[in-house]
């Protein structure tokens, strides 16, 4: 056995330990894993972890708001998918199934916190007050971003997998430095803030995540790594991404990691709230693995029936986050028929408004695009813009000409 391993390093290790190491390395631990859950699939409240207290502290209005957010984003998502099918968006990334993970975590953030989303965090955008129609600009191809990230502390969507996570850690380290500089200058420190870095199970395999976690751990940066494990990295199942449950990786970096039922909005909210408070108070990062499921396609260009079974999809439908929460609200008497009807109507209005917004988007102008090259005006850019405008004007002439010259 020892012959398979580098000799010098392991010479002093007893054989038994080597056997044990080998056994551990080949053990798949994806069996029963502890997962924070406050609502079971039937919407019954489980009062068995200390996170339950946080959930109990929520007022009825707050509970209703969580439902409203989830229902809204699902309706919006359906409309955006339809718009893509109608040729009005070149692509859409459906969020269906992950509403609880997004709304629960988003609602746990404070205004001074800063969010780094992937390209699927439509629900988080809603909780941050981003005008939802603006999300569609990028997918229609009329903008490179769509909203001002400084307004809601909600960063622009990042399409490159995991590329936003080092940014998030850097931002968190920046917050630490701002605070210490303020302290050194004797100024009042800004409100303690934290950063949430969203990524998926697929992105967890990227090197950026490793680097980010190393830095975050070393500097105890106020960042919460929020991994939505939706089971599928396009067509690659999580079991291929990781031999062990993803949250276990945090141990290797030296900060807490835990799995939460990502289809349980109360659990996600409680866990994220705890992790953020911890980060703001200077105790460093946490990795949250929200265990959820992408009910739809990876994007509108994907067909999940090609790589997963109907039975699997159906088993996850039974865990649907919105149905579950609706059962809870009804059973507890927190909401009645009128409330659900009102939310549904609101959803329809939101969908109609989003459709109007999309159809009214105007194509970007070259001048507007070139304004974003440098923060301030630059003579070279001005010169190139002038040249391009002249070049464009040449086409306009040709068009007029051909209209007159036909026949």
């Amino acid at each position, binding site marked *: 056995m020892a012959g398979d391993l580098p000799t010098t390093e392991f010479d002093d290790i007893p054989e038994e330990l080597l056997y044990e190491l080998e056994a551990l390395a080949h053990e798949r631990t994806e069996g029963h894993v502890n997962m924070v859950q406050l609502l079971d699939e039937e919407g019954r409240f489980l009062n068995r972890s200390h996170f339950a207290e946080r959930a109990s502290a929520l007022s009825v209005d707050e509970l209703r708001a969580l439902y409203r957010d989830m229902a809204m984003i699902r309706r919006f998502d359906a409309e955006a998918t339809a718009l893509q099918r109608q040729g009005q*968006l070149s692509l859409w990334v459906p969020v269906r199934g992950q509403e609880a993970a997004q709304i629960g975590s988003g609602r746990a953030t404070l205004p001074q916190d800063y969010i780094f989303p992937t390209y699927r965090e439509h629900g988080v955008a809603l909780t941050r007050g981003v005008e939802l129609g603006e999300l569609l600009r990028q997918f229609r191809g009329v903008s490179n971003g769509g909203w001002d990230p400084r307004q809601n502390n909600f960063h622009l969507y990042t399409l490159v997998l995991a590329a936003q996570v080092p940014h998030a850690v850097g931002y968190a380290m920046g917050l630490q430095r701002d605070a210490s500089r303020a302290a050194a200058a004797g100024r009042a420190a800004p409100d303690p803030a934290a950063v949430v870095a969203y990524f998926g199970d697929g992105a967890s395999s990227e090197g950026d995540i490793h680097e980010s976690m190393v830095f975050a751990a070393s500097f105890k940066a106020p960042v919460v790594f929020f991994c939505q494990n939706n089971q599928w990295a396009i067509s690659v199942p999580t079991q291929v991404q990781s031999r062990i449950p993803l949250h276990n990786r945090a141990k290797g970096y030296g900060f807490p990691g835990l799995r939460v039922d990502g289809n349980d909005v109360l659990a996600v909210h409680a866990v994220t709230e705890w992790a953020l408070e911890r980060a703001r108070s200077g105790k460093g990062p946490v990795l949250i693995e929200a265990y959820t499921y992408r009910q739809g396609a990876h994007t509108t260009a994907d067909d999940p029936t090609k790589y997963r079974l109907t039975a699997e999809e159906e088993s996850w439908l039974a865990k649907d986050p919105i149905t579950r929460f609706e059962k809870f609200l009804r059973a507890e008497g927190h909401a009645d028929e009128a409330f659900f009807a009102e939310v549904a109507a609101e959803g329809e209005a939101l969908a109609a408004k989003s459709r109007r917004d999309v159809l009214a988007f105007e194509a970007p102008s070259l001048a507007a695009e070139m304004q974003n090259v440098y923060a301030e005006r630059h003579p070279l850019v001005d010169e190139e813009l002038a040249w391009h405008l002249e070049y464009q004007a040449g086409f306009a002439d040709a068009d007029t000409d051909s209209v007159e010259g036909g026949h």
Partner: protein
Amino acid sequence: MSKQIFNLPDVGEGLTEADIVAWKVKPGDTVAINDVLCEIETAKSLVELPSPFEGTVLELLAPEHETIEVGSPIIAIGSTSHVAGTGLAAAPGPSASGPAVPAPGASALKEANDGGAAPGVAAASPSSSPAAASPAPRLPAASEALNAPVPQMHEPGIETGPLVGSGPKADAVKRRPRKQQVATPGAPSPATSRQQPATPRAVGSSAAAGSPTPAASAQASQENEASTAVARLLTRVLAKPPVRRIAKELGINLVDVPATGPRGEVTRADLESYQVQREREIAAAPTFWEPAKKPVDQRIEVVPVRGVRKATAKAMVDSAFTAPHVSIFVDVDASRTMEFVQRLKKSRDFENIKVSPLLILAKAVIWAAARNPSVNSEWVSTPNGDEIHIKHFMNLGIAAATPRGLLVPNIKNAQDLSLKELAVALNDLATTARAGKTKAGDMQGGTLTVTNIGALGIDIGTPIINPGEVAIVAFGTIKQKPWVVSGEVIPRWITTLGGSFDHRVVDGDLSARFMADVAAIMEEPALLLD
């Protein structure tokens, strides 16, 4: 009532075409926004298209089961609301009033091809078409109304409105002509002369659009159409309007006529000589083999190979040429199986469950495979040499003829199912397959396949192994035949079983044992109680 055209969008990233699998609406239907119009199959997936408009379906512009290019009009929907007047009606612009894109050979669009008016275009009140065709300035306010016609996708080269969802087409195939410096006003400008060849095409397309308006008033619009139509015209037959009219009257598809004109257009003489030849052929042809005025080169119907057909072809070639097949056959007296099936049908336990001899065969195959495990295996080539993977589970494939072609969905872990569960699984599988709803995942991971060719009255055939498996059992028809029992000829229910095996894995001896085991169950189902 304004007419709105929905052009086929790119529902994936960079798709150029799709097949319409089924229309879910028909002319006259009222649709709301996001109601499903049709189901399309692209290279990537099967998706439903929701309606971008509300109103009444005027016309389906693309037939089912044909490949449609992204950007081609597929449906016309009339808006019932009275909005914003002419500016709105004009918004769809050139693409709405343009001729229906000719899909050569498409019967629904044949008329348009022949130079006549496409039925739907004609239906949309001729008087409105000049207005619709004119490049009226787009009113920004127009899009305020929810059901306002949305900007359409355009042909390459026309840059009005966002180029969304049109995939690779969005990149201009052809550069827009750039104006030469305005230094040559006197001489015939190059731009003008470049336009010349396009002129007859423009006239043609406007004629096709069914708006024989005076050239003077429609000049601008036709010019606009001319450039819109450029890409389209690359695949379009050229002919002057009078020629098109004659062709239409004679019922000739211009595509069929050999063109001899100087620019490759069909001339009047071409048409006349074609007509003479055709009359001769029609007169000479017998009725059965020479139907329907088809010219010689259409006696062979060309069916493009794609989708399931393509997948089946590839799988069969892969299997037939990598796995050396050995096939064996056995005649079986299935009378007891027939009795057993009758008893099951009457049993209360099997109420409302369809029971057929195929159920017994499936059970027999599972039973026999357990006794001969090597038939339930896979030949795997790895870099370290070849391996045989024997499966300790049975995903039993059932070959099924479906509307989409031959599919082999399988019943997962069939070894764990009771007879009743297996019956239910077989029924579900057949229902799903017949409805064309079989998912790709249901077809993966099969370990052994049964094909029921007897359903069509066939005695037996040589099946080809499903790739990834090493055995397949074919089930012939069951009918009464004379059979010798104890020296006497009596009528019995007889069937023939055929099996093909991958000889790399399954030798003659093993295949014979396996088939004998299957046959034994068919002859005496009570052995299943073992």
